[in-house]
């Protein structure tokens, strides 16, 4: 056990302690709140450090065996480069969210007088995620995985007074359970091949191609469900909004990543590169593209801020999967270097998304905290009352929209690069699919920008649309600090990718046995050249420098002799009373896209016009438009209906009275006897 491993285990121990401590501190609520939050943050810090050290000293893998578990299978924990990277991701968000929680949970204390529920399950949730990442046998993996699922279920159903929240929780747990069962199935296949549950054995097991495919499909669907891949995503937009914001930040920011981790662990590590079939990558790529596009399209139509963010998580998981899919295709076709690039792109986006989605959810939490609502139509003008929050939220918006100089841009850039490096391939379908996916990525990225202009513009800009928004207030320092940390990371990762990429280079080294450093001469920290400078290069620091210089120049030139600024009323086209209700609404903002993609959305529009005494005199017009999730309506509802019909039939069989029951037994024994005699 080396230092990194001990840190990682310590992180888990701290989470566990926090969860056990929570009920003991129930009497001193504020002390409890601070303790839990800061312990979570501390656990995050440990995880972050463990990840960093693990990545830097990639040679020294470490394993420890916990004396719990099955009699012949104690739990194995293990820190390799892959888990170190995900530990880093976990820690990078846990730390700020922990700090943020210290402020955020104040409200819960005031409302309920207790945070027992959160105090127990938030650290447990953390523990589950850390455990999954460190697990080195199928049993430990599943235990921590389900711990993560069920504790997050309790977080989702935290405000269980409301029917919709309970429904969301139920749907979430249902899907999580299904996902868990599928993953269990995948492990069972690997076990059947290898004969043991430890990953070491599974890794070296000989898989037939049928079994490998079976395991891959089970894992793909299981983890895809958890990661929110369209069309397996339906739990996600319901579950994330109703959880407390610190929990939804973690769920969206890192729980989805843990699913990505699991997928990588099973496909790349356990099944292994040698057993890939060519179409696996294509499947992942297609799933990624569809998630990216549908996710952002659905996000655009949401007026609930957290729901919007939830759908956008689906989109970003799609982007991550595009990278992974590309990596799988290239690795399978024998282009390890490009595969390594694609994998780095996807990993980069993984940590990026953790950071900015965490930031955005925390921002949404701050808004919720300040206004008491998630409905964007009731907000507006918060930038004047919550300047810090709005600035930080803007950073998140720009990052997620893939705009320089923030981190989202770098990872999307890398993904594009890997798609463009596609070598000539014999498979024409793949040749067409890859550029198509790239263009879908472009579309999704651009639509994300639309989406977040809407989110920021409607929530923070303009004028207040309601009383609540008018009386909003800035959040406290805990929450501010919680949001500042990921914002800084966003900027750093956006400006200095060259420092970060060598750090995560070990992951493709481990999984593809190829890395970027083998082919790239990293000249210095200034230039990011994935393959060589001839093909593509990017210097984010220089870009930022250029921008700063230019802005300074213009500012200096204009302000040196510029005229003053005066304020005046809003120009209203001559109309005297411009009320806040006349602003563009969130619904209105997304109307063009609703119209363009009406085939995807199938919006239900209802217009009610009330007339006066004459049809020309209109009293009022009500217009209502709802955009439902198509996957939910067209796939899930029919399945539910079929199940319901079957269950009704079965229930009827149980109400037929004694004679029928006796007949069942009678017929059974006769049939069984006949079978026994004949067979």
């Amino acid at each position: 056990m080396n230092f990194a491993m001990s840190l990682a285990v310590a992180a888990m121990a701290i989470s566990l302690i926090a969860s056990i401590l929570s009920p003991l501190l129930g009497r001193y609520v504020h002390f409890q709140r601070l303790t839990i939050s800061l312990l979570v943050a501390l656990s995050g810090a440990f995880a972050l450090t463990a990840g960093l050290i693990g990545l830097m000293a990639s040679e020294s893998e470490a394993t420890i065996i916990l004396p719990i578990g099955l009699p012949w299978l104690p739990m194995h924990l293990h820190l390799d480069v892959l888990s170190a990277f995900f530990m880093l991701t976990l820690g990078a968000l846990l730390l700020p969210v922990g700090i943020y929680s210290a402020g955020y949970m104040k409200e819960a204390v005031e409302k309920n007088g207790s945070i027992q529920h959160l105090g127990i399950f938030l650290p447990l949730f953390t523990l589950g995620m850390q455990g999954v990442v460190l697990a080195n046998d199928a049993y430990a993996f599943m235990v921590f995985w389900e711990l993560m699922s069920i504790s997050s279920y309790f977080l989702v159903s935290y405000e269980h007074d409301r029917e919709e929240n309970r429904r969301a929780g139920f749907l979430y747990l249902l899907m999580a359970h299904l996902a868990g069962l599928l993953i269990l199935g995948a492990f069972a296949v690997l076990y059947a091949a290898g004969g043991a549950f430890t990953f070491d054995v599974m890794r070296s097991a000989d898989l037939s191609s049928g079994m490998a495919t079976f395991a891959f499909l089970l894992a793909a669907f299981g983890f895809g469900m958890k990661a929110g891949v369209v069309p397996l995503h339906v739990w996600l937009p319901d579950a994330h909004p109703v959880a407390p914001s610190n929990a939804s930040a973690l769920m969206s920011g890192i729980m989805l990543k843990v699913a990505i981790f699991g997928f990588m662990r099973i496909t790349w590590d356990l099944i292994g590169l040698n057993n890939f079939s060519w179409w696996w990558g294509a499947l992942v790529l297609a799933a990624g593209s569809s998630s990216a596009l549908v996710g952002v399209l659905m996000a655009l139509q949401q007026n609930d801020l957290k729901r919007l963010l939830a759908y956008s998580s689906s989109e970003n998981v799609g982007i991550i999967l595009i990278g992974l899919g590309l990596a799988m295709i290239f690795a399978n076709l024998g282009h390890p270097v490009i595969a390594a690039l694609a994998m780095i792109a996807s990993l980069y986006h993984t940590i990026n998304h953790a950071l900015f989605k965490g930031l955005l959810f925390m921002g949404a939490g701050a808004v919720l905290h300040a206004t008491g609502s998630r409905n964007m139509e009731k907000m507006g003008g918060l930038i004047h009352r919550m300047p810090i929050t709005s600035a930080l939220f803007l950073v998140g918006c720009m990052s997620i929209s893939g705009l320089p100089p923030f981190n989202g841009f770098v990872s999307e850039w890398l993904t594009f690069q890997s798609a463009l490096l596609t070598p000539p391939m014999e498979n024409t379908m793949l040749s067409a699919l890859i550029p198509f996916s790239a263009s879908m990525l472009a579309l999704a990225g651009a639509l994300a920008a639309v989406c977040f202009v809407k989110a920021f513009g409607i929530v923070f800009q303009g004028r207040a649309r309601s009383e609540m928004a008018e009386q909003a207030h800035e959040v406290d320092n805990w929450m501010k600090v919680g949001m500042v940390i990921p914002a800084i990371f966003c900027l750093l990762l956006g400006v200095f990718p060259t420092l970060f990429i060598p750090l995560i280079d070990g992951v493709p080294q481990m999984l593809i046995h190829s890395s970027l450093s083998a082919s790239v001469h990293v000249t210095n920290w200034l230039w990011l050249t994935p393959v060589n400078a001839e093909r593509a290069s990017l210097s984010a620091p220089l870009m930022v420098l250029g921008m700063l210089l230019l802005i300074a120049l213009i500012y200096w030139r204009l302000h040196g002799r510029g005229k003053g600024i005066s304020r005046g009323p809003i120009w209203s086209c001559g109309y005297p009373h411009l009320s806040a209700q006349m602003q563009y609404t969130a619904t209105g903002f997304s109307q063009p896209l609703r119209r363009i993609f009406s085939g995807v959305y199938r919006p239900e529009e209802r217009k009610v016009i009330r007339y006066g005494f004459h049809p020309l005199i209109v009293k009022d017009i009500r217009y209502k438009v709802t955009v439902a999730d198509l996957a939910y309506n067209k796939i899930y509802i029919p399945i539910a209906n079929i199940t319901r019909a079957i269950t009704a039939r079965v229930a009827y069989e149980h109400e037929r009275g004694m004679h029928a029951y006796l007949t069942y037994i009678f017929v059974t024994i006769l049939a069984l006897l006949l079978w026994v005699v004949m067979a």
Partner: protein
Amino acid sequence: MNWFMFMLLSPLIGGIILAFVRHKKWASTINISFSGLTFVGSLGLALKVLEQGSYEALEGLFFLDSYNVIIVTLTAFVALTTAIFSGPYMRFEWRHRKLPERRLRLYHTMYQLFIFGMLLGFTTNNIGVMWIALELATLATVLLVSLYRTPGSIAAAWKYFMLAGMGIALAFFGTILIFFTSSSVLGHGNEALTWTLLFKHATELEPSVMMMAFAFLMVGYGTKIGLVPMHAWLPDAHAEGPTPVSAVLSGLLLNLALYILVRFKMLVDMATGTDKAGHIMIAFGILSLLVAALSLHNQRDIKRMFSFSSIEHMGLITVAFGIGTPLAIFAGLIHMTVHSLVKSGIFFTVGHAAQAMGSQNMDQIRGLIRHHPGIGWGLLIGTAAIAGFPPFGVFTSEFLLFSATLNSYPWLIFLLLTGLLIAFVGLFRFVQPMVFAEPPDHAVIIKANMLPVYIHFGLALFLGLYIPKFLADWYQQAATLISAASGGGV
């Protein structure tokens, strides 16, 4: 002092004494003490087995091996905790005029007799006595189910009686068939019914008769296990009887029938040298799993719903034994243990919940967590445990079962997964509204005795995280023993 006698006599004597005790408080104390004595007896036996492996007594009439020692201890333990639970519970029922004093006495007596029947069935070496013991336990529970004498409970008890009677008759026919073939090998006396001897000479038994016997035994004991389509008695019996009875029915009685069936399966496997018997069990198990899972959805009564969950789990265990590899049997044994613990714990909780809300109708039960956090969390944790969420032991066994299934019958895994998922949905869609939200106005504050519940769940949790060495050894030995019968250990 012979531990067997000690363990078997204490419930018998207890039952007789309790028939005459009128004082309510004392009656429950005596009930608990005799159950405690029984448990001590079972522990003594377990220690003995730890010392010397398998163990026979009274001229081979009773015996313990690694297979039944686990279940005997478990039975005695659950019987004890149920007795502890039933004290305040039954007093509440009596105070709310659901039961006259006379019937409280009947309850205690029958409870002890039931335990006697159970332990007799588990420890006897004679397949005829096994049958008698099961019949005895059945008759005792018939009286217990009809304890309230409401129309529903009488109808349920009648149904239980008739269906179980039909089943048990078939089982007896199967036993006769076995005697028919074994008497030509082992002579005409008790030896031909002694399981250990039968097992020793199993290969000499006539395969075709054994197979036919197994068909009868399967349907017969299957009725008592609650396997579909012979299960119709089970939901009503659980729903209408007093809660402690539901707990022991689900937690113990079903185990006994399954235990006996598996004993016979071992014989049949040895005799026929095929795994036909295993296939039959798998078929019944899967059918039970699926039908019970689907049945969970259209329920109103909370105890009825959980009884369907018992059918589902019995189906699962049956599948495990049917597969018959050491791993599968290992999984089946753990599942049996943990299911008993968790399911009886759930029934305890449900009983209190029903008392607090004044109804067993699930539409009437709301907001348990707000109303009584102990009960609410108990129900939630119990449901999570029974649905197979780690780190509870149910998960462990399901995990192992999947692996075993995949080794032998890969295609089965789809059916298993589907069944478990449907069951989970059915269970949770009812449990969630019950524990969450606001409690209704008609809820009353009760003094719930949650200690047994948390002991059970705690044990299930413990088994999920860590299986002690001696226990693991027992499971392992039992698994080897049982699987060795089927075609040399697959």
